[in-house]
């Protein structure tokens, strides 16, 4: 019985491998033909992502937006601000954890101060007193920590209902949720948290709606650039890629150079992914996210070493600056 069982398992395994192989082959074939832009190197599953994006958009226009509009209409502004401050303050628990994981010890002390001041004098976080004391809100999360630790972001993914993320961002947001006290409060407050998030996104969504020629690409680019900017604390600039093209006063004569640049860029991106075993076929993006979970778990096993390394790096850069 046992041997039969293992035999079945083998057949299942081989057929799965074949299936995945076949899917990835067709995936490769279509990607080389259809997607030739630089950006699509970061978005190999564009077709699937676009479908989910369209689904999310429909759900948003028929469910989330009407409820959020009603919330904004019913709730006075001071209360909306209070609610925003309350959830923002709780998020700082996660910010402090990630400050430490990125070896930003000074900032972690400031953010702890921020959390304490707002939770006490700020009436449980309803009033943002810390801002006026000179402790601005910092933005740190597990995705940024993994980026600092050198984990590549992997392919761009659009999650049903949750929206844009990456193979690195998806498992990170699970950790972010776990490290946010708001996740442990009961259902009605969770709903308010959701309403608050949606209502605050309205401004950005208006910009997309008014300004974007292709909302899908606009959101993807905006998301990836903003995440890179945050993870590198403003040191990474997407514009640097473009700078090489800016140097070409005559695009016609330097066309081949530009083309080569595009090719190297995408090869680098592909190599980057391959290094981290994140080279996925177009069908198994969610499997990729699962693998990314594994990678994340492994990263955390070495967390101590990473933090030590980062702290050392920061010390040396500081002493260099001092000299």
């Amino acid at each position, binding site marked *: 019985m046992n041997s039969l069982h293992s035999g079945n398992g083998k057949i299942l395994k081989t057929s799965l491998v074949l299936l995945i192989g076949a899917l990835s082959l067709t995936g490769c074939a279509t990607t080389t033909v259809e997607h030739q*832009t630089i950006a699509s190197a970061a978005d190999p599953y564009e077709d699937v992502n676009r479908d989910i994006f369209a689904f999310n958009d429909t759900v948003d226009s028929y469910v989330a937006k009407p409820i959020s509009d009603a919330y904004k209409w019913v709730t006075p502004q001071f209360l909306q601000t209070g609610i925003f401050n309350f959830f923002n303050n709780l998020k700082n628990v996660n910010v402090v954890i990630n400050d430490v994981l990125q070896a930003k010890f000074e900032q972690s002390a400031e953010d702890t101060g921020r959390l304490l001041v707002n939770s006490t004098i700020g009436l449980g976080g309803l009033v943002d007193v810390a801002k006026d004391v000179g402790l601005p809100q910092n933005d740190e999360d597990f995705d940024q920590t993994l980026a600092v630790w050198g984990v590549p972001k992997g392919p761009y993914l659009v999650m049903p209902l949750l929206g844009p993320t990456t193979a690195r961002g998806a498992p990170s947001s699970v950790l972010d949720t776990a490290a946010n006290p708001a996740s442990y409060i009961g259902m009605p407050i969770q709903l308010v948290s959701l309403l608050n998030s949606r209502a605050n996104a309205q401004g950005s969504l208006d910009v997309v709606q008014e300004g974007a020629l292709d909302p899908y690409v606009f959101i993807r680019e905006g998301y990836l650039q903003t995440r890179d900017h945050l993870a590198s604390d403003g040191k990474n600039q997407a514009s640097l890629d*473009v700078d090489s093209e800016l140097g070409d006063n005559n695009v*016609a004569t330097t*066309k081949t150079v530009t*083309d080569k640049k595009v090719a190297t860029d995408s090869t680098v991106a592909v190599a980057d992914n391959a290094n981290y075993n994140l080279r996925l076929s177009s069908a198994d993006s969610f499997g990729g996210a699962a693998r990314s979970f594994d990678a994340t778990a492994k990263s955390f096993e070495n967390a101590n070493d990473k933090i030590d390394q980062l702290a050392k790096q920061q010390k040396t850069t500081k002493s260099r600056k001092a000299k």
Partner: protein
Amino acid sequence: MVFKNIKIIAVFIGLLLLGISNAFAIEDGAKQVVDKFQSELIAVMKNGKQLGFTGRYDKLYGPVSNSHDLSKIARIVVGKEWEKLSEAQQKKLVDVFSKLSVASYAHNFKDYSGEAFTIDSEEETARGGVVVYAHLSIPNDKDVKFEYHLKDKDKSWRIINIVANGVSDLALKRSEYTSILQREGFDSLIAKINEKIDNYSKL
């Protein structure tokens, strides 16, 4: 003879000084171009409501097209697709793209509530461009960090890219435009741009 030599030296020094002052003029130029454009923008914002969309558009057309290198930006945002376009199509693209750029300024900077631009610093890039770092202060809100990337065009500096809080307008537009060109073609791109301009004028 001595006088002649002195004369030559004087002329030489004069030329040298002229050269130096010219170099300085270009150095200063980048910052001045941004500064001038920002103050023109704030001026339009202050009268934004009375001017209305058309008024703001007319007032901003000169300032935007004089401070930006719109034809170069239009060429970069379509990437290598530019080469595949006919001359008439290229001309059409530059034309509607310029209109869209002015229209989006006219739409986004429609009123004034105490905003102020401040130039922080400038830096030369390795490729002979200049980056001007600035920020927009908005009362009761976080500052928006701006980077203006400028390139020399016929001895005057022109804005070629704006990076706001780490998001590069040029990179974002290039992804959008090349994606639409590849997926739907040139006519669809032009139709979409015209639709946006139309929407801006109605909002």
